């Protein structure tokens, strides 16, 4: 009896759920119908407007002015793009310039740092030689030091040729002598690299107004076609800093010698 009742209830449930689904489906259909009706009404209104000449003309005018506006905006954007591309090029060029300046500053810093890293005269001369080879790119050159008493410039280091090949010169005479006397960098003739009395360029070394010596460059390395702005900066740096470094190292070695002599005397007197 009970089983029969349960079966009846379950079938009734099934029928009810069928009705519920049917009702939901009908609701969806009604909503869809309403949406389509609204769409049809919209199309009909547009159709009515299109059939009206005045309304059509207004619509056309609106569209044409909108196209004009869009074309104007497009031109503005293209102009802006050109401007941005120009700025981009300018920044790229500026970046390269700054990078080059950065490299140049690094070279100048290294040269200056190395020149003042020692008080040993032979070390200072070796560093000047290294700078002229590695940073300037000279193949044949000599470093002259001035004897203040005789006013003779004597080569103390050279590269590319034996030191004895470079002739000593009197202050004020020849390209080297003139550069040291005037304190101005002198340029010789590039066509005579074999003439060791006529360097390609001669950089005077001076501490303030006091002449110390000179660097005479006769030939550049094969890949160097000429002097760059960095080379001129290095000439200026060497003219002052190499001179100071040489002067300081010479004074230091003299003072060391004198100190040893005095110490010797003191030892002799006190013992």
């Amino acid at each position, binding site marked *: 009896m009970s089983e029969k009742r349960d079966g009846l209830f379950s079938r009734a449930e099934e029928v009810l759920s069928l009705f519920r689904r049917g009702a939901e489906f009908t609701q969806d259909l009604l909503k869809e119908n309403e949406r389509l009706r609204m769409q049809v009404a919209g199309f009909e209104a547009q159709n009515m407007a299109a059939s009206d000449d005045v309304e059509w003309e207004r619509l056309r005018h609106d569209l044409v002015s909108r196209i004009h506006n869009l074309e104007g905006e497009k031109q503005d954007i293209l102009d802006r793009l050109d401007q941005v591309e120009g700025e981009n090029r300018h920044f790229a060029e500026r970046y390269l310039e700054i990078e080059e300046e950065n490299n140049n500053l690094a070279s100048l810093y290294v040269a200056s740092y190395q020149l003042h890293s020692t008080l040993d005269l032979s070390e200072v001369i070796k560093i000047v030689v*290294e700078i002229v080879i590695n940073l300037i790119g000279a193949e044949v050159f000599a470093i002259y030091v001035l004897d203040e008493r005789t006013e003779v410039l004597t080569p103390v280091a050279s590269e590319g040729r034996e030191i004895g090949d470079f002739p000593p010169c009197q202050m004020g005479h020849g390209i080297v002598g003139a550069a040291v006397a005037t304190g101005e960098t002198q340029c010789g003739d590039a066509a005579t690299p074999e003439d060791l009395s006529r360097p390609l360029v001669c950089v005077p070394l001076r501490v303030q107004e006091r002449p110390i010596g000179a660097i005479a460059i006769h030939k550049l390395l094969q890949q160097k076609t000429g002097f760059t702005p960095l080379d001129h900066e290095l000439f200026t740096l060497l003219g002052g800093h190499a001179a100071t470094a040489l002067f300081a190292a010479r004074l230091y070695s003299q003072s060391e010698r004198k100190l040893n002599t005095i110490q010797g005397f003191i030892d002799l007197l006190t013992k």
Partner: protein
Amino acid sequence: MARHRILIVEDSPTMRQLLVFALKRLKDVDIVEAQDGMDGLRKVSSDHFDLALIDINMPVMDGLKLISLIRGEDSLRAMPIIVITTEGAKEDRERAIALGANEYLTKPIQANKVLRIAQSLLKAE
């Protein structure tokens, strides 16, 4: 990202400092300096390096000898080498390349070129 280790074997302190300045601009690098070929050999044998820059003309042991010793060692055969030379020393450069150097730089060196070559060799490694 792992740091790259670069060895500079160069007797001139000026050149070494200049190379350090240039290579410091690379990201994540540790730079070790050696002042001649023997010092370079000691360092390369006891430590790992991803790149070596070797000058040809050096006291105690020159760059060519160092390159041949490095390439003779199985564990160092793949390490990229940049050789530093002068433009005129074409024979030395060719010998260095024949011995196993990957690239060369000529004096006076340009920082941009050092960076470009070092970057490409470190990437290709």
